[in-house]
């Protein structure tokens, strides 16, 4: 036995293991789960304060564990005020008796009122905090962010639709840019200084359902669901809100709000983005074989874009050659239902010209918005810069207002349309 203990003594690793067990292992016996010491925050709402003592009112959507054997998400919205972001977070922690854990933060909601000033000042803490995932979504709302969080919670409880999924949808089909916190700052630090934040509006809950603007059919469905659940939510006196995804977005330059864009504006701008090709085109009152005074709806099946920048007399000319492959999938004729299969419809040159005209006018609209607010969302800057750095610099120097280059760059677009 003596020999055995001597051997152990001579094996330092065993001693160290015993040491670790003695010091840390025993304390681990009394250690509770880390989740019980941290409040897991999945969304933060930032509101403006009316009084002058405090700058921020932060609302947190935190996950509160309850004893259940099944998977139950229970969230709670808590609010804290503070002079700065960190202070408000500290107060929130104090309120919950737990440290605030931001590692699972998914959404940051800003009240639109706050956006009149420099947004980066507000978001500075979030982007510097290492724990906050860089893929956290950043969205704005037209009313109180606190109410928005409550609406989020409600939406999640009732239908397990998550706002982050809505944001993902928007970025796939409408805004065409990642709506994350990281992307906002990427835009801010990029030479164009342009960034986008999607905005969601809140409407008072009357029907109790998910409302999607411009879509009556789905709204109706939501209404019928609401009828079933109405008894549960209608009990309290609190007014509940519904989140409305209108596909709108706010554009920023240097951290300042420039303008709110509608979904259509965004789609128009998206024509300039090479890899982005969803949406439908409608031509009204089209006459030509075999249609007569019909409204035709085409789906964009594929889009290929080639861009080229040429300096002509020191002025950059942006050539844009777009090829569309479209599919006809809707015909509305006055004489009733159109009686042919449209799958095999080959676009006639007349229809093609109409579509081209439509696309060009859409693109012109999109460009006009960008020119008006002097924000280069489609990032023409990089393309022009990477083509000819010196000429572009000379061109920029020749301008009175360097930010206003979009108004001086010439755009030439060529659109071609093909059937699938």
């Amino acid at each position, binding site marked *: 036995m003596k020999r055995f203990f001597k051997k152990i003594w001579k094996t330092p690793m065993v001693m160290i293991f015993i040491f670790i067990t003695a010091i840390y292992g025993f304390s681990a016996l009394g250690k509770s789960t880390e989740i019980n010491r*941290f409040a897991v925050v999945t969304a933060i709402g930032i509101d403006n304060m009316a009084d002058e003592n405090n700058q921020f009112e932060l609302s947190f959507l935190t*996950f509160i564990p309850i004893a259940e054997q099944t998977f139950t998400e229970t969230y709670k919205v808590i609010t804290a005020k503070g002079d700065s972001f960190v202070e408000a977070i500290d107060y929130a922690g104090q309120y919950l008796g737990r440290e605030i854990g931001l590692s699972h933060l998914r959404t940051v909601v800003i009240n639109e009122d706050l956006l009149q000033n420099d947004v980066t000042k507000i978001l500075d803490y979030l982007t510097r905090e290492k724990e906050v995932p860089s893929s956290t979504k950043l969205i704005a709302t037209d009313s109180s962010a606190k109410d928005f969080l409550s609406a989020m919670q409600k939406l999640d409880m009732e239908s397990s639709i998550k706002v982050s999924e809505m944001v993902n949808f928007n970025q796939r089909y409408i805004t065409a840019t990642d709506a994350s916190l990281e992307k906002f700052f990427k835009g801010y630090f990029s030479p164009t200084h342009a960034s986008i934040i999607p905005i969601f509006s809140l409407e008072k809950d009357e029907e109790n359902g998910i409302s999607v603007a411009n879509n009556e059919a789905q709204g109706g469905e939501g209404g019928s669901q609401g009828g079933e659940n109405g008894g549960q939510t209608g009990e309290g006196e609190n007014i509940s809100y519904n989140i409305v995804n209108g596909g709108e977005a706010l554009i920023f330059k240097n951290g300042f709000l420039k303008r709110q864009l509608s979904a259509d504006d965004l789609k128009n701008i998206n024509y300039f983005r090479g890899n982005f090709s969803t949406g439908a085109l409608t031509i009204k009152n089209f006459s030509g074989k075999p249609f007569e005074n019909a409204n035709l709806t085409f789906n964009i099946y594929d889009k290929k874009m080639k861009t080229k920048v040429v300096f002509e007399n020191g002025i950059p000319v942006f050539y844009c050659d777009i090829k569309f492959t479209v599919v006809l999938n809707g015909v509305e004729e006055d004489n009733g239902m159109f009686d042919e299969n449209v799958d095999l419809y080959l676009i006639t040159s007349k229809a093609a010209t109409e579509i081209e005209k439509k696309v060009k006018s859409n693109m012109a609209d999109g460009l006009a918005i960008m020119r008006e607010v002097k924000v280069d969302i489609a990032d023409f800057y990089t393309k022009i810069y990477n083509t000819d750095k010196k000429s572009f610099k000379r061109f920029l120097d020749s301008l009175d207002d360097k930010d206003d280059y979009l108004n001086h760059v010439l755009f030439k677009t060529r659109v071609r349309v093909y059937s699938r």
Partner: protein
Amino acid sequence: MDIKNEIKKIKTNLHNSIDVSDRTLEKNGAEIGFVYLKSMTDNAIFADAIYEPISRFSGEISFETVKELVQVNDVEEIKKSEITQKVLKGVVVLMFSNSDKVLAIDILKFLTRTPSEPPTSPVIMGPREGFTEDLKTNITLIRRRFYSEQLVLEEAVVGSSTQTKIAICYLDGIADPKIVKDIKKRLSKIKIDGVIDSYYLLTLLSDRPDSMLKQIGCCEKPDIISAKLLEGRVALIVDGSPIVLTIPFVLLEDLQNSNDYYTNYIYSSFLRFIRLMGIFLAVFGPGVYIALQLFHYNVLPINYLITIADTTQQIPFTPFIEILFISLLFQILYEVSLRLPSYLGLATSIVGALILGDTGVKAGLISPPTVIVVAIAKIALYTVPEQNAQITILQFVFLVLGASVGLLGIIGGAIYVLAYANTIENYGAPYLAPFSPFILSDNKDGLLKVPLSDMTNRPKSFSNEKKERTDD
């Protein structure tokens, strides 16, 4: 020779043990004395082939005539001083009043099992023989797989009291003579009173007897031993043990299973990956789980986090106590189910699985994720039953490390254990051989298995005489 006196002397030497039998036969004035152990000899042969021919013989009885008369093959003349030793080994000793010579007739017989499929390594398709406790039978089982003069069987005796016979078995021209010599040297140096089972030799022959790692291969099936002999290994068959040892040993051997060689090679490669995964889950599963729970909640995906958070709310214990409790509970159930007769095994599994597991969860004493993690780890342990002991210990070590210092400790521990294993070179074979150091040709039968037709070389992880398996 004074027969009566001699018999008395032998009996005194054997402390008048109850199984010592003696008999005398008088014929034509000459007297013959028989001494033997009832328990170790075949009584029927003694009666039919020894006693009867002598008693019927009408001529003059002498040493030479008796030697002719006896109808047994194993007959030899021994010295007087050897009598006691021979009797102990199941020999009938014949003494003659008219001669000083002593005749020994070997009719050793004791009860043994017949070769049956060992419970430790059953196969689905393949030989179902297993070794028994009898050395002779075991040698037969190997010998009949090699009808060539290459197979060498040498004898060694270990143990001052037990005098256990050990057969050193190897293929001449394939096994490295240096290893054989080394084994013989180490066997001769062993100072122990008795070797009851081959496991005794396991520690005595290892380079590092204190190490927790198993450094010598164990096997219960003659087909596996034959395959290992063909690879150039040396087998040690210990009398009285159905477990045959093979030297040198590398860890990979335990990942291989005899089933692998009797099925499709792709399937067996897949199975080996599963086994490796099993080891990983078994060793690290509980440790990583507890580390995530206590130190790194922020790396868990939110949905999983919610499940853990919800289910652990009701638990009265802290996570570490809970997981230790469940692990210990399982270990106790395991011990009980091993020791209990099989008809009670069902009862324990009902108690274990249903009452302790399900009701425990329902009563809010233990949380379902913990039960799942521990259960997976404990089941995964048996993907490699040969390493059961080591994995169980490591599982607890990593559990403690994970709970005390988190992920950093687990990875540090893993590096330490592997680095330690890398320092072991038993009989010149690096312990983690075909992987570190990486030996490409050995990896044909490593984690991936190639078809038998491509395995043309013997393993290079340890030294052997002939590298190629084919003769040309």
